[in-house]
Structure formats: structure tokens, C-alpha cells
């Protein structure tokens, strides 16, 4: 068996290759089915300072809860207008946003059902390996039984994964890399 190539930091100078021309801040475009939402927030470091050189990548199911991928064998339709993948950089104030549609629910392990969620990876200067986390949406009934959320004992850690519903399809979700309000990250 071969061993994996180790991760290294994305560094401070990735923008010209990864996000200036290959940014995807709208996963849905105009043709996708489903309820349009915007996720917006800040990335903050252990001093509460904004992180201006961060890249965020997201992956999610379409509005029906179907992944556009050969291993998703659910009897649900692929939405050709929906990309599912996004990539954005933070601005000089550490802000980011992306537009998408509200994902449908997808199966979890065993016979569980997962609440609508978005898979997130965080890359930045200083991070030698990307961080993995998830976004859930405030007010979704399935949040109370989601197998990942319910496995997090500490309420603050659980809440760190839930984007606040600000109305009109806008959700606020900060990525706190370190400190009192630290986001729960995964060994994934």
C-alpha cells in the first residue's frame, strides 16, 4: 500500500491561481431548482482578528437531496442547473459569502436521515492542512435529530455549526478558527 502525500499550507499567494479566475460564488446559477439562499460571514483567528487570506470550499446536495456523483444511487433526480461545488476567498475584512439553494436532506449512517447541510473546507496561510466542518441552517426541523449535530455534547460547539437565519434567505455563519466561540471542526 502506498502512503499519502502530506498536506502543506495553501500559503498567502493562492488567489491568482485558485480564486481570481476560478472562484465559484454561486452554486446554483439561474436554472437550479429550489429555494435560493445566501450564506455570509467572517473568518476570525484566535485574537478575534479577521483572516483576509482564507479560501473556503463547499460541497452540497441539490434541493432534492441528491449529489451529482456516481456513488449517489438514490432514486432522486440530478439537477443539471446545479453545480454543488463552490469556492470563495475572504476579502480584506475577512468576509465571505456564497449563493446556493437550500440543500435537501440526505441519508446518514445506518437508517438515519441527515438535516440539510453543506460540507465545508477551510484553507489559509498558517493552516498546514485544511479544516473540515459543516453548515446547518437555523430552523430546520431535522436539526434536532441529525446524527452529527446530536453527537456533539457541548451546546456552544453544536451551535457553531448552525447558520443564523436573518430572513429573506440570508444566513449568517462565522468561521472562528480558535477561541471562546471556536467552530467545531472534524477529523474527517
Amino acid at each position, binding site marked *: *500500500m*502506498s*502512503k*499519502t*502525500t*502530506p*498536506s*502543506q*499550507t*495553501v*500559503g*498567502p*499567494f*493562492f*488567489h*491568482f*491561481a*485558485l480564486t481570481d479566475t*476560478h472562484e465559484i460564488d454561486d452554486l446554483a446559477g439561474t436554472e437550479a431548482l429550489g429555494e435560493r439562499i445566501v450564506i455570509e460571514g467572517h473568518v476570525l*483567528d*484566535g485574537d478575534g482578528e479577521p483572516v483576509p487570506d482564507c479560501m473556503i470550499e463547499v*460541497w452540497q446536495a441539490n434541493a432534492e437531496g441528491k*449529489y451529482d*456523483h456516481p*456513488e*449517489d444511487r*438514490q432514486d432522486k433526480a440530478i439537477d443539471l442547473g446545479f*453545480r454543488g*461545488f463552490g469556492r470563495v476567498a475572504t476579502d480584506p475584512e475577512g468576509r465571505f459569502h456564497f449563493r446556493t439553494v437550500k440543500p435537501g436532506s440526505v441519508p*446518514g*449512517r*445506518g*437508517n438515519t436521515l*441527515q438535516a440539510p*447541510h453543506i*460540507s465545508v*473546507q477551510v*484553507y*489559509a*496561510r*498558517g*493552516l*498546514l*492542512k485544511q479544516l*473540515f466542518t*459543516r453548515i446547518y441552517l437555523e430552523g430546520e426541523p431535522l436539526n434536532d435529530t441529525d446524527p*452529527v449535530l446530536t*453527537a*456533539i455534547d457541548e451546546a456552544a*460547539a453544536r451551535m457553531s455549526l448552525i447558520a443564523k437565519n436573518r430572513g429573506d434567505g440570508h444566513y449568517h455563519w462565522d468561521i472562528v*478558527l*480558535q*477561541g471562546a466561540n*471556536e*467552530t*467545531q*471542526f*472534524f*477529523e*474527517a
Partner: protein
Amino acid sequence: MSDVNGYRIVTPDSAPAHPFPDYRSNPLRVPKRPLMILPHTLTEVTGPVYGHENVRPEETDLTRQHGGEPLGERIVVHGRVLDEDGRPVRGSLVEIWQANAAGRYIHQRDQHPAPIDPNFTGAGRAVTDDDGYYRFVTIKPGAYPWRNHHNAWRPAHIHFSMFGPSFMQRLVTQMYFPGDPLFPFDPIFNSVTDEKARNRMISTFDLDATQPEWALAFKFDIVLRGREATPMEEH
């Protein structure tokens, strides 16, 4: 049952240390709360496998992206993207970026007083073929100073970003060149504390692929995470 066959966890010897204070930007940006184990579901074993069709062939030749030829040592960088079981990772996007021959990035925030090369941007993209093979033509990047500590210089490197079929296989790394005298002094390279693992980030000089009267070649195979042998039992 909807259990999926997940991906193997990256073993600690193959990962950079966490935290790693020798890298000055690291301590305030790494989480202190313990990472929570996330058993893989359909979300994790899927990922963006389509949509790479807009990669143009000329994006693999970083020496032909402007009106003239860039300065520096022309090189071929090639290899295969494989998983831990040696299976080729096919149709997968590989993105690279680097400094020019003088050690200067085109990035506007790079203030190193070395010349910009008007004929070199330093970004490329390729999609692996059915053998997991990719190939770039570029210019050997220079070392550059970075103020992490007194007289800190990064060894010459090319940044690599890979997608596999699963979002969990996503890998961003750096490719180094064999025999670089800066290796012992670079905290980013040495954040991978296992010597064998560090050596997996160093390309090898490839005489067979070197093109006479034209360009040296360096080979860099990349190994992404493989699958668990069998789906894990629920407890």
C-alpha cells in the same frame, strides 16, 4: 442500510504537526477544541467530479501563456495521481501555482524586491488521464525570503491542489526539488516531522523524461487517501 464505504483516516505520520509554532502564522489559526471524528456518509464520499471540461490544453504549459518566453530554467513536471491502493485517480483536476525564476509571485501582495517576469504568471491546470497522469511545462521557481524568522527562505517549490472522486480526498500540498540546501531550515517543509513522509513531497530528477536540448524533467507522483477495506459496522 445506507452505509457507505468511507475513506481511510490520514495517519499522523503522513500529516503536518498540529499545532506547529515554528511556523509563525500557525498558532493563532489552528483550532484548540479537539477535532470530532466524522464517520463518512454520502456527503463525504461524494464530491465535485464533473465540471472540469473547461480546462484548456494550453493551461498545462506555463511558458506559453504570454507573448514571449519567460526567463529561467525550463522544466517538465509530470507524474501520476494515485490512491493508497495504487489505483489511478482519473479525470481529476490538478491546479498548480508558483513563483517565477527570480522567486517572485505575480500576486499583488508579494513585495519581495525581485523582478516580475512579464511573460510568466505561474498558474496552471490539468486534468489527469485514464492512468492518473498529468504533465506540465514550466520554469523552475526560485527560492524567496518570507520573514518567518531571521533570514528565512522558502526552498523552491510548486503548490499543487488535487481533487479526487471524494471531497475528503482533497489535497493541497507543495512539491519540492531534490537536494535543496534550504530543507533543514524551512518550518513548512519540516512541519511534516516524519522523514519518509517529508521525502514524499520531493520530486525526483527524471532523465528518461528529460528532453535533449530543451528541458530537464522532474517526476512527482501524488497519493490521495484510499477507501476503507469494507464498510464499517454500526455500533
